[in-house]
């Protein structure tokens, strides 16, 4: 077992973490779509300096063992993936050169289609 990585101090960005630590990818997508660019940037730039340490810290545990504040932190870290394009590529919360992302309905398996 390699050395234990300490939990980074995220007390100063707790507010942002609380706003964006939503349970599913779809929740975070809707959050991004309903946010202003200021809100998105504010979250992104608060998290960014700590993100490598956060990933390294969370990566020590089995996913099934993540709970409480660590689970919350993991969801906020995943939200960084959701806002990445908005911050760096689109400079706007919603891509306006694609279809409405919500039209893409999440599947639950290769053969999951109910027909009647």
């Amino acid at each position, binding site marked *: 077992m390699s050395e234990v990585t300490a939990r980074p101090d995220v007390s100063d960005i707790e507010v942002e973490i609380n706003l964006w630590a939503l349970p599913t*990818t779809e929740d975070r997508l809707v959050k991004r779509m309903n946010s202003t660019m200021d809100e998105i940037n504010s979250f992104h730039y608060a998290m960014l300096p700590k993100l490598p340490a956060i*990933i390294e810290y969370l990566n020590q545990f089995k996913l099934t063992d993540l709970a409480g504040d660590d689970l919350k932190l993991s969801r906020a870290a995943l939200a960084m993936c959701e806002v990445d394009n908005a911050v760096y590529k689109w400079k706007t919360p919603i891509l306006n050169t*694609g279809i409405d*992302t919500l039209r893409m309905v999440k*599947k639950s398996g*290769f*053969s999951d289609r109910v027909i009647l």
Partner: protein
Amino acid sequence: MGNANIMAIPPLGSDELGTEAIPSDHYSSQAFFEQEKEHIFKKTWLMAGRESDVAEHGDFITYFIDALETSIIITRDQHGQVNAFYNACTHRGAHVLTEPCGKAKFMTCDFHGWVFDSEGKLADVPGEELFGDLDKSKLGLKPVSVDVWGGFVFINLDPEPSVSLKGYLKPLNESFDKYLGNKDWTWSYGWRSTFNANWKLLVDAQIEGYHVDQTHRNTIAGAIPGTHAPSIAYPDSIGVPARISAYRPEHMMGVQTDVALLSAKHGATSLYTKPEKEFSADDGEGVLNEDHPLWIFDAYLLFPNVVLFVQKGQILVQRTLPITPSECLWEVDFYHTGDVEDFGQLFNSEQGRIQIRDVLTEDLYTAEGIQMNFNAGVIKEIQINQQEMPIRAYYHRLMSAMKGTGE
């Protein structure tokens, strides 16, 4: 092999594909659509499921072809055989199964309770004496041609397909069968949608590199320049008209974000970032072009309706199905190897999933507008350049299939 060679684009008109404009009525005509049902969807091999979803005796999946109003059951029987049947009870015609997947060594029709086994045999009839002389041996579920390749279950509504699945998929050889069929691939995620567009338009959108720089200008344009998406045609193939490849640029253009770089440390579920990881499905002798430092993926058009992206550590399958000439079902599914167990892997998976999702929204953006222009009769033909050659190869294959030869 040098870049110049690998990136070469076939000259216009090569493989006897011609250079003329392509008519657009096959995307909008109701008469053509009716012929497609007969000559294509009732005659060719269709990717209907994944073998691992019917791993054990009694496992079943169903597959629905909207335009034909045809539902198919795929089962694994007690002999380990994969079977396919019409989902049609031989009593009075009800669907025997209504779920997309599940387990039932005996399938019971909800209407009156006729029971079929996983070989399709009629096993039990409640109140059998009420029928007088019922010959159960003649009332099994109607069989459908089925075969497995690369871990995928294909069905063919032709009772005697003119070519075997293996022959159909040439030039994809046994290495592909082995690589794609590796037991380590597991379904990770996918999406579906319906579009007011012909089913072939969403295939077209995935088989040429010409669109990348413009369509994907807000996502991955810099990561796969259009000029790094060469294609080749397989004029002798029955089921694989063409392939397109994607290579990274020598010098990455566009933005490589911190999030993308952090993600790459933990896997390769993003198409557009070079992985720093090994994968268990690595038996792809001749499948993966790993010798080339810039290679990302090859995408094969499997006629009529599948685009199969093959890369290291990831399989992406796009399938479409017709509903009407101007309406289709669209689905994508992703397979990866190894479970997502730690947070790094989850982060990588999430980053890859979101990047490809956003790219797909761009790919899907144009089809409905195109369909309107075809339906309105404003655009009667389309222009195809060298880089878009697979669309021409697809069209040629389509027209040859429509001649009703099955080949």
